[in-house]
Structures are given as structure tokens and as C-alpha cells.
């Protein structure tokens, strides 16, 4: 037995050797990026439930796939998915081909590609969300709509920077501040940008307490911020049960492309409100949500290969994402200011910024900023109205973009 030869083969097949071969340095950079993301998730607690999984998926993908070594041991195969999306390829949209050659993360990614995970996450979100504040003050929906401004401004900005229409639509939806919606739309329209878009969406969501307060101060006066809102009416159980049925029927008939997201969101909410499906509600908001979060985060992270991530487009996406978030916040605040005057100064415009979705963090920011100016003010429940309206608003925005570019 040639011990030296065997050792040499082992060395040449190892990832350590691959770092010194063609393109290997890029893997090293991606591994460092994964470490930074892990740090942000674990130490800084930036959306840790998602970011830890995304970072580790990125790490696994870049540890196991090297251009110079081939794809024998890879957990994720970018070239398989390139064939899957290539209309000229015999394997166009062939899940069978993927399954026959896939690694573990390719297999998990099928759930993202088919739009299953984001929809199931939405079911969990629905099961966790109390739409009572929205029902007691339906005008909140206007704030949820105003706060989608960033989606379309960022879309336009992306076109100016040379992105294609479907790519610009996927970048714009970051402004909806809704991770599952961003992932769902991007997988359908521009899967090549999934990694950077998911990172941007979840990072900025975690940074909402830093991004929003300066804008809230800039677009409202002290007098506005001090407004104490009156308690809203009680919502009956029957109304809460009818709500998911009415919204599903209405929104899906209006925009059929929203069916997977809105349908699952409202199904989860129906489980919560019926009072006879507590076990299903519990599963949707805990066990199922946790399982799907693991699969979703890890497989989205796996798409962050060096080839797809290390380019100027990623920088553009990060910048456009920040613009999208900020403009959406400004849109919600402008809507809030308009409602402040329209209501005879009874509505505190700070609740407008909560229209960016990101439940419940954006509502908490409204509460915190409001209390800074009036210690007796409790805006949380008032802000939850626009907050959950933002979820529906971003799903409608995604549905619109999907119907145009899908």
C-alpha cells in the first residue's frame, strides 16, 4: 500500500487544499461571511432563529462545494438548480433530476423552491397573530398600505441600477419587511438572488429598532408624538372567526397569486380563533413553525455560494434593501400624519411606521418611541393594527409583482 500516495490523495481531495486551487479563496471569504453572520445571530441576537440557520447553511455549502474539487461531496449543487431553471435544458423544472443527484441541502431546498416553507411559516404567523386590533380599527389598513411605498421605490431603484424586472421586483419586496414573503417571491422570480435578499431582509428586520426611530422623529412633530389614543372597541369571537374566512375569500379572488401566502396566513388564524382546533393552532405556531424554520433557514443559507454572492449585485441589494425599509417606514409615517389631521388629531402618527409588517417588532418600536414622549401612552395595541395590516399589504404587493413578472 502506497501510504504517501494515499495521504497525498487525501490532501488533494480535502477542502484545505482546495482553498489554494482555482476559486478556492472565494469559499474562504464565504466561510468568513458565515462566521460574521453567526456572530450577528448569536451574540448580537439579530433575528437569531433565522440568521443562525442561514449562516450555518452558508457555512455547510461553502465547506462542501469547491469548483476545483467537483461536486462529489457537496451538500448543495448550484449547477443542478441552474439546469432546473434553464428552459433549454432537458432537466428544466425536473424535481426528479434534482432528487436523483441531490445533496442534503438540495433536498431541503425543494421546499423553498416549491414555495412550501414560506407558506407554512405564514400559517404559523397566522396562528400567532391576533387580528383584533385591526378589526377594532379597520382604518389601520390604510397605514399598512402606505408602508408598502418602499417596495415600489426600491423596485424602481433596482431598475435604474440595471437589474432585470423580476430581479427588481424581488429586491423591492425587501421593503415589505416580511421574510417569508421576500423568500417566496424571490424563489419564484429571481432565485439567483435568494441568498443576498434573504440576508438583507432578515438583517434589516433585526435592525428596525435602529432604523425607524430617527425617521419617526424626522417625520413627526413632538405634539404628534404625544397624542394619546383612545381605547378601541371590543371585538367579538364571531368577528374574529369570520375575519380569516372573509379575508381569504376577498383577497384571493382579487389577486389569485396571493393564494399560497394569504391562504395559509388565514388558515393558521382560523385555527387560532375557532376555539375547536387548539391542537392544530398549537402545532402550527410551535412545532411546525420551528421545523419549517430550520429547513427554510438552512436551505436558504446554502444558496449563498461564492459564485452567486461575491459580486457587486450583493452590495446593491444590501443598499437597496436599506432604502426599501427606510422608505416604507417613511410611507407609513406620512400615512399616519395624514390620518392624524384627518381624525382631528386623535391618531398618533407613530403607529404608521408599524405598517411595515415585521410583526411585532415594528409595533414595539412605535410603543417605545411613543412612551418616550408621553409616559402614560400605550400605543402597542394601536400599532398592532397597522402591523398586521402590513403583513396582508406585503402579501398583496408580492401577489401583484408575481402576477406581472411571474
Amino acid at each position, binding site marked *: 500500500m502506497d501510504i504517501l500516495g494515499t495521504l497525498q490523495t487525501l490532501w488533494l481531495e480535502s477542502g484545505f487544499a482546495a482553498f489554494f486551487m482555482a476559486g478556492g479563496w472565494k469559499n474562504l471569504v464565504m466561510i468568513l461571511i458565515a462566521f460574521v453572520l453567526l456572530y450577528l445571530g448569536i451574540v448580537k441576537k439579530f433575528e437569531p432563529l433565522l440568521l443562525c440557520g442561514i449562516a450555518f447553511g452558508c457555512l455547510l455549502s461553502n465547506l462542501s462545494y469547491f469548483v476545483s474539487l467537483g461536486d462529489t461531496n457537496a451538500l448543495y449543487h448550484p449547477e443542478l438548480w441552474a439546469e432546473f431553471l434553464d428552459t433549454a435544458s432537458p432537466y428544466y423544472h425536473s424535481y426528479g433530476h434534482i432528487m436523483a443527484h441531490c445533496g442534503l441541502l438540495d433536498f431541503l431546498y425543494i421546499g423553498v423552491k416549491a414555495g412550501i416553507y414560506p407558506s407554512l411559516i405564514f400559517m404559523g404567523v397566522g396562528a400567532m397573530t391576533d387580528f383584533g386590533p*385591526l*378589526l377594532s380599527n*379597520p*382604518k389601520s*389598513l*390604510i397605514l*399598512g*398600505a*402606505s408602508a*408598502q*411605498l418602499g*417596495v*415600489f*421605490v426600491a*423596485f*424602481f431603484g433596482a*431598475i*435604474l441600477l440595471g437589474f*432585470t*424586472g*423580476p430581479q*427588481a421586483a424581488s429586491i423591492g419586496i425587501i421593503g415589505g419587511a416580511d421574510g417569508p414573503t421576500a423568500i417566496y417571491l424571490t424563489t419564484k422570480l429571481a432565485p439567483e438572488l435568494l441568498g443576498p435578499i434573504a440576508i438583507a431582509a432578515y438583517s434589516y428586520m433585526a435592525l428596525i429598532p435602529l432604523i425607524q426611530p430617527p425617521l419617526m422623529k424626522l417625520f413627526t412633530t413632538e405634539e404628534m408624538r404625544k397624542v394619546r389614543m383612545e381605547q378601541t*372597541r371590543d371585538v*367579538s369571537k*364571531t*368577528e374574529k372567526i*369570520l*375575519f380569516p374566512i*372573509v*379575508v381569504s375569500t*376577498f*383577497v384571493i379572488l*382579487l*389577486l389569485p397569486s396571493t393564494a399560497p401566502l394569504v391562504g395559509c396566513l388565514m388558515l393558521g388564524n382560523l385555527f387560532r380563533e375557532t376555539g375547536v382546533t387548539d391542537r392544530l393552532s398549537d402545532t402550527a405556531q410551535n412545532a411546525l413553525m420551528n421545523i419549517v424554520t430550520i429547513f427554510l433557514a438552512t436551505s436558504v443559507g446554502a444558496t449563498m455560494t461564492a459564485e452567486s454572492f461575491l459580486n457587486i449585485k450583493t452590495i446593491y441589494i444590501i443598499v437597496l434593501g436599506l432604502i426599501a425599509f427606510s422608505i416604507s417606514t417613511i410611507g407609513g409615517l406620512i400615512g399616519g400624519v395624514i390620518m392624524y389631521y384627518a381624525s382631528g388629531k386623535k391618531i398618533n402618527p407613530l403607529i404608521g411606521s408599524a405598517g411595515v409588517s415585521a410583526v411585532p417588532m415594528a409595533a414595539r418600536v412605535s410603543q417605545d418611541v411613543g412612551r418616550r414622549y408621553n409616559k402614560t401612552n400605550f400605543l402597542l395595541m394601536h400599532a398592532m393594527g397597522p402591523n398586521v*395590516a402590513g403583513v*396582508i*399589504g406585503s402579501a*398583496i*404587493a408580492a401577489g*401583484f*409583482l408575481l402576477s*406581472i*413578472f411571474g
Partner: protein
Amino acid sequence: MDLVNLQVGQAVRIALLGYGVVFLGLLMLMIVIMILGKVMIASRKKAETAAAVAAPVKEVPAETPKAYAEGSAGEIKLYDTDPKDAAMIMAIVANKLGKPINELRFKSIKEIKE
């Protein structure tokens, strides 16, 4: 229209249309929810009125005052604790236990200094 390589003018039109569709969709949903709310409030009032009419008029015995937990009315002792903090702590405890605050008995609250 070439939706992949969009011109600036086309992008503006799509952005405006999209924002309009989101607004219109949520505005219509708001109207639907408002109508639903009005119907629910009206039917609740109707049911309450019908119940009040149907109920026979009889003398209502004076309600026996509910026995509150002893010590809930001002007997709590505070050690190095601000009354506002104490009120907040009691409210949190009541909320966590799912019991009305006036049915709980707080004897004392003391700040533990390490």
C-alpha cells in the same frame, strides 16, 4: 412589453400601478371589515334588546359583595421599593397567574440587593 429589460418609464408605470393596487385592495378590505363590524355590532345589540324584552321583570336580590382577599387594600409592606414599581410587579404577577388583582394577597415586596 419586455418585462425582463424594463425601460425607466415602464418601471415607473408598474411601480405606480402596484402601489395603487395595494392601496385599492386594502381600502376595499377595510370597507368589507367595516361592514362586517357594523353587522356584528347591530346583531349583538339586537340580541341584547331581545333578551332584555324576553326576560321577566322580577325583583333582583341585592348582590352579595364578593369577598376580596385580605390585605389587598393597602396593607402591603414595601421595603426599598417604589410604589410605582410595586404596582407594576403586582400587575405582572396577576397577569401571569391569570387572576384578578383584587383576589390576590400581597404581603410585602422587598428589593433584593446582591
